[in-house]
């Protein structure tokens, strides 16, 4: 399958700060690719390079095999949402989309279609300056959908959405992927990717830490661990340790055991008369898997990023 987005060995530094340090990944059509990593991992910089806004010092980024700056009618090739606050406050939502449409040779009919699609029909002729963050996100998504593009790039689209909005955007992005589009969505919160992304690109310190499917990532992070609930914590730990298991204390009556199967644990505890109320195979949350992966990659910055925005 032809990659919709190819990011090849991007390097970029701002003064002495390394923003991108060999970032490479591809985004395939037909699925939602989550682009996650802590703040400062280089997600937004990568997206800006893909979209031709920033120039990389090294490497290249291609959309449909071409650099963004060489695209004709680019909004019909790639739809992007970078900063939902980037609006002229006194311009109405509809007029904001109208100038974008005109720049691509599209008409007002397409504007009205996307504005209904994102649920802003009732406020289309209101000034965008009065919009909540959630409404601005919807307007930004409408702009991304305007050219009916095969590729979508969305930077933190869930930010500021209410729970209903989060559910809506999950469904929207999944259906866009189901139509065969390539969807790249960034977030600094792994939990947002649950039930949304099929594939994950995890970034840290300007490079890709993990490039994997969501299912594989969770399985790897779970790593055969077992959760044990018992009132006799000390006895249980001694019995299991003697059998060669590694035991970690989670709280007063919960232990996490690794190195032994659940069946063996039940047998061991029975043989040693240790009472227990629950033995369950541990299924890692995406968040835990992510913490595991990025533990080394988190970089706490004392300085404010160059553009003054909080996300990276």
């Amino acid at each position, binding site marked *: 399958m032809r990659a919709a987005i190819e990011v090849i060995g991007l390097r970029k530094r701002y003064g002495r700060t390394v923003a991108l340090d060999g970032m490479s990944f591809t985004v395939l059509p037909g699925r939602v690719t989550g682009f996650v990593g802590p703040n400062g991992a280089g997600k937004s910089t990568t997206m800006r390079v893909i979209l*031709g806004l920033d120039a990389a010092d090294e490497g290249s980024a291609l959309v449909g095999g*071409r650099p963004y700056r060489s695209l004709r*009618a680019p*909004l019909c090739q790639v739809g992007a949402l*970078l900063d939902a*606050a980037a609006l002229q406050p006194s311009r109405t939502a509809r007029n904001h989309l*109208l*100038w974008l449409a005109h720049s691509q040779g599209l008409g007002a009919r397409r504007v009205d279609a996307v504005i209904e699609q994102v649920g802003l029909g009732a406020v289309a002729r209101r000034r965008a300056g009065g919009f909540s963050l959630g409404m601005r996100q919807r307007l930004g998504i409408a702009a991304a959908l305007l050219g009916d593009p095969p590729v979508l790039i969305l930077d933190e689209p869930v930010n500021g959405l209410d729970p209903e909005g989060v559910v809506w955007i999950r469904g929207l992005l999944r259906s866009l992927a189901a139509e065969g589009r390539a969807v790249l969505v960034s977030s600094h919160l792994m939990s947002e990717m649950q039930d949304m992304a099929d594939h994950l690109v995890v970034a840290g310190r300007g490079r890709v830490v993990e490039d994997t499917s969501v299912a594989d990532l969770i399985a790897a992070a779970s790593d055969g661990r077992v959760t044990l609930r018992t009132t006799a914590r000390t006895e249980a730990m001694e019995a299991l340790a003697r059998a060669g298991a590694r035991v970690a204390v989670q709280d007063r009556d919960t232990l996490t055991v690794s190195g032994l199967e659940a069946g063996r644990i039940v047998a061991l505890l029975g043989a040693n008369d240790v009472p227990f109320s629950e033995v369950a195979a541990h299924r890692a949350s995406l968040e835990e898997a992510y913490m595991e992966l990025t533990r080394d990659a988190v970089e706490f910055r004392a300085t404010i990023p160059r553009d003054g925005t909080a996300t990276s």
Partner: protein
Amino acid sequence: MTDPSTVMTDPTTGGRDGFPHLVRAEWTKFRTVRGWVAGMTLAVVLVVALGLLSAAGSHASCGMGGVETACTLTTGPGGEAVSDRFFFVHRRLDGDGSITVRVDSMTGQIRLPDTVPGVRRVVAGVVPWAKAGIMVKDGVREGASYAAVMVTARHGVRMQHDFTEDVAGRSGGVSPGSPRWLRLTRSGGTLTGYESVDGRRWTVVGTARPAHLPAAVEAGMFVASPGDLTVSRGDLGGASVQVRFTEATAVFDQVRVEGRAGGTWSHDDVGVAYEADGRTPHHPGRFTESGGAFAITGVGDVAPSVDGMRIESTLSGLVAGLVAVIVVAVLFVSAEHRRGLFRTTLLAAPRRGRAFAAKAVVVGAVAFAAGLAAALTVPLGARVLRANGNAVLPVSTFTELRVVAGVAALTAAVAVLALACGALVRRGAAAVAAVAGLVVVPHILATASVLPPEVVRWLLRLTPAAGFAVQQSVPEYAQVLGYYSPQGGYYPLPPLAGLAVLCGYAALAAVLAAVRIRKGDA
């Protein structure tokens, strides 16, 4: 053979972000922000309202024998305002022929500024443009077509015709020891002027084809002496201009008319003004003749006149209007930078030079239209001024169109300059201050005359404020002594050259802005 489906999906051949689409998008952007449309409208309203209000409030009347009349201007064959006052001793000349004279002397008197109020202080002397010579003229009506060759007090021999045309001959004046011979020859519609120091060896000064010269003309000797000009600079800047009475007397002899000359010599004090009684001439000229020698005394000038209001005087609100245009043009780009919206613009138009060019086209076109609407004040205001009895210097339709279109072009160039500065500086207030400092401040300094005149002239040559020259409707005449200052409406550069300086600045700023936009991260 090309597969049509490939063509349809190939992103390189879509071509839907053609430049016209970008221009349309920028126009949509402009018209959908109410503040910007209001700002441009305000610019037009300011110019029109200030201009028409001042025109409506300006009334004038002139007295003629105790009767109030509208102030009228004498106009020459080209339609321009002229001063046509001189003493003329002439006879009729039918068809081709020539007139020859020797000018023996030129003397006169000049009234100096009073040192004791009310006491006339008159000294002997002649002003530099005092004229004595020979002329053929279409009758003695003021403003009629003519051609003349003359000696002047300080500007040598001149050949002039139809008021605006002036050709220099040899320098030097006349004195009893060194007379000057002059000859004017008519051949069909062409007049040739000659000069000689001895009456034998003649030099051509120039040729002229006056606009309306009938077969029978008046040919003869004339003397004129324009008023003396004193410019005094006030303590707080500004200048007061005083014009004082002078007269010149020239002695002619060796007068010879060849051709079909009719009758005897007659004389006219052409263009003389009258006292309040309507009969007594004010500062009359005179002449005496004895033994073929004529002593003629004349007052006035035969030249273009620059006394009167100018059509562009109704553009007093132009500077205020331009400030509004500058603010809107700067905001058109700086607001996008402030909101991060410029990135969205570049997503839609990744070829950045074209994105900026589309913006410049739109802001330039909008400003041109606004400037054109504002400049309609010029014909409307002139009409109001004339209806109120004011003497407005007439100009040709072409000049009027040039002023109107020039003001529109000036507005457009200022808007593009402001847009480019907004894109370079990216801070709205700083960009507005910079452009106002480049365009408006030099013009205010120049017209407020707080600076020495030479500094002002250089400001209006070198800064973008040079573009204001495009509104000047009446040119500076080398052969008319006047106080040609910017506050009087005279710019050091010709109209289109001044506009070109401004356009140069706008183009330079636009190129720098495009380079900056193309190079950096957005």
